[in-house]
């Protein structure tokens, strides 16, 4: 039992508390502490990825309580990957934020650390009720982050976001307590074992709870028809926050994958593969509606927010295929889409600031002060997010498509994904050519983009390049990850074989 397992929770928790107490002191101190903490989190995530890569399920029982009692952290390949993806995104968002967009005040850094606490907790917990608690931690931090800064639009979008998530939390509690009432367990592995041997008479209750969970996680993941809150909220958030929120939908995707491979997976008896018949059509509808939104968007940030919806649709369609190749392809695509959407949100902010009052509206406007540089970055990011060769978007989509080949209703995915690439290409060509080519005289007195902010964008793009050039290593990892997911027996057995650490420790 390695104590490193709890570091992704303790590190952001302690830095968040420290940052709150430091509030009002030197901004330099707060910013450097926040950055150091984020960098350490990346280091810890890399170490955990290395630990998880041995194929074992690693458990950390808080207070040495035997599972299924007590609070349990579980590290497997999937949670390690999610930790690394989120910590790298957070590091670059913070690098962007410290260059001046973390104002007003200095509260943003503490809130980001609390958000990371919730996100990491959701990835690591092995218990359904703790998942709820960590969801609430990340949600309340995200409410504060979304509303950070002033502006009527933020208050408007924030109200919708908070209300819909509170309603979602109520559904989550109903589902969790119904499962507890049925099985007497909240630990995911024990729950999986109990569901597998469920009395067929109780199956409808378990199925109800399972589908309610899908509604809740679908709300977090922005699955159609529950994505309407997303475009407005993301488009009105400040740039580093919007970039950081690219991980939030992925938390929903993660919980969907975890719940419906482990608890309601292949071996769940009467409720086996509960979500799959719902997930497949809904994912395709999400994909289609996201594309329509991206085509129709009149502002760049709204367009990128719809691209987040598109990526969720693509991901969940891959997940719904439920084969090893498809899951591996989906998680490859997840890494790519998280970072590229983050980079696009940051880039949109840089473009927006050089256009004066027009902001990010897609209309003819003044020439940008750094048209060539920002144009080149936008071009690279667009090529990647559309899925044109040679960047990782292409590899990810190709892998999902080839995983779908031998599936019976793959034709829908092929049509939507290929037509979708074309639609994304059209949408981004429209905004790109308007911003960089249909221009009038440049505005006077526009300051060029800050070097640190450019570093943040370039860093995320470099991450995408790494995933592109290291594709075979990444794919090898995600294939092993998918294999681990599709054999949940190991997860359940590791829990049953757990022995408490002796008192001398």
């Amino acid at each position: 039992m390695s104590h490193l397992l709890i570091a992704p929770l303790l590190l952001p928790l302690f830095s968040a508390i420290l940052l709150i107490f430091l509030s009002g002191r030197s901004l330099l101190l707060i910013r450097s502490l926040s950055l150091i903490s984020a960098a350490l989190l990346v280091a810890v995530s890399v170490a955990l990825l290395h630990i998880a890569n041995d194929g074992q399920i690693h458990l950390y029982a808080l207070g040495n309580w035997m599972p299924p009692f007590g609070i349990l952290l579980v590290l497997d390949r999937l949670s390690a990957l999610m930790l690394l993806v989120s910590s790298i995104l957070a590091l670059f968002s913070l690098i962007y934020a410290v260059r001046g967009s973390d104002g007003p005040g200095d509260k943003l850094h503490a809130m980001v650390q609390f958000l990371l606490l919730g996100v990491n907790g959701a990835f690591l917990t092995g218990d359904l009720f703790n998942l709820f608690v960590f969801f609430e931690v990340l949600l309340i931090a995200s409410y504060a982050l979304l509303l950070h800064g002033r502006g009527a639009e933020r208050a408007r979008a924030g109200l919708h976001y908070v209300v819909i998530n509170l309603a979602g939390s109520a559904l989550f509690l109903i589902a969790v307590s119904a499962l507890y009432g049925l099985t007497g367990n909240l630990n995911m592995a024990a729950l999986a074992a109990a569901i597998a041997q469920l009395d067929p008479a109780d199956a409808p209750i378990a199925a109800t709870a399972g589908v309610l969970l899908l509604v809740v996680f679908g709300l977090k993941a922005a699955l159609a028809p529950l994505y309407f809150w997303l475009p407005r909220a993301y488009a009105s958030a400040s740039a580093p926050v919007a970039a950081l929120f690219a991980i939030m939908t992925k938390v929903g995707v993660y919980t969907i994958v975890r719940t419906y491979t482990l608890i309601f997976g292949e071996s769940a008896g009467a409720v086996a593969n509960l979500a799959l018949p719902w997930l497949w059509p809904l994912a395709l509808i999400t994909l289609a509606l996201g594309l329509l939104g991206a085509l129709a968007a009149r502002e760049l940030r709204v367009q990128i927010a719809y691209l987040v919806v598109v990526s969720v649709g693509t991901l969940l369609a891959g997940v719904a295929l439920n084969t090893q190749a498809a899951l591996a392809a989906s998680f490859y695509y997840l890494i790519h889409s998280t970072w590229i959407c983050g980079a696009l949100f940051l880039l949109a902010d840089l473009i927006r600031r050089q256009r004066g009052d027009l902001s990010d509206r897609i209309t003819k406007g003044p020439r940008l002060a750094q048209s060539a540089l920002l144009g080149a970055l936008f071009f690279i990011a667009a090529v990647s997010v559309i899925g044109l060769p040679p960047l990782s978007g292409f590899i990810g989509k190709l892998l999902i498509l080839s995983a779908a080949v031998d599936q019976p209703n793959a034709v829908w995915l092929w049509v939507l994904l290929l037509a979708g690439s074309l639609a994304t290409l059209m949408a981004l060509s429209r905004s790109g050519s308007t911003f960089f080519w249909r221009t009038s005289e440049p505005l006077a007195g526009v300051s060029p983009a800050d070097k640190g902010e450019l570093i943040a964008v370039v860093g995320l793009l470099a991450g995408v390049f790494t995933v592109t050039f290291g594709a075979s290593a990444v794919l090898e990892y995600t294939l092993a990850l998918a294999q681990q997911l599709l054999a949940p027996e190991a997860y359940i057995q590791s829990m049953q074989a757990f022995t408490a650490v002796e008192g001398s420790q």
Partner: protein
Amino acid sequence: MEALIALVIGVLVSCGVYLLLRARTFPVILGLTLLSYGVNLFIFVMGRLRTGAPAVVSKSDNLSSTLSYADPLPQALVLTAIVIGFAMTAFLLVLALRARAELGNDHVDGTAGLGEKPVKPVRPLEEDEV
């Protein structure tokens, strides 16, 4: 007893959902509060309804004969849910007030209804309120 509790939860949840769908922020907050009351009650009764069951079982009790003790876990869960729900309601109230101040009305969409005169924003926010 079970039927009564089920009825109470049903009434709470349906009133909550009705209020949640209203157009003004204050009824929406009340609706969420009612909804969370219904949910909390639901969590609580998931430990099964028992009367006269001991809450604490000591070692000297013969467990095989007094198997019906009160399940402590849902009680712990419901406490957690109450605390979280309380904090969220407080936050939502502040947010609704801020939206009222910034948007000039208390509609959930931030737009004044038909035939209603939009009021000017009450006052710009101070730095420490942001």
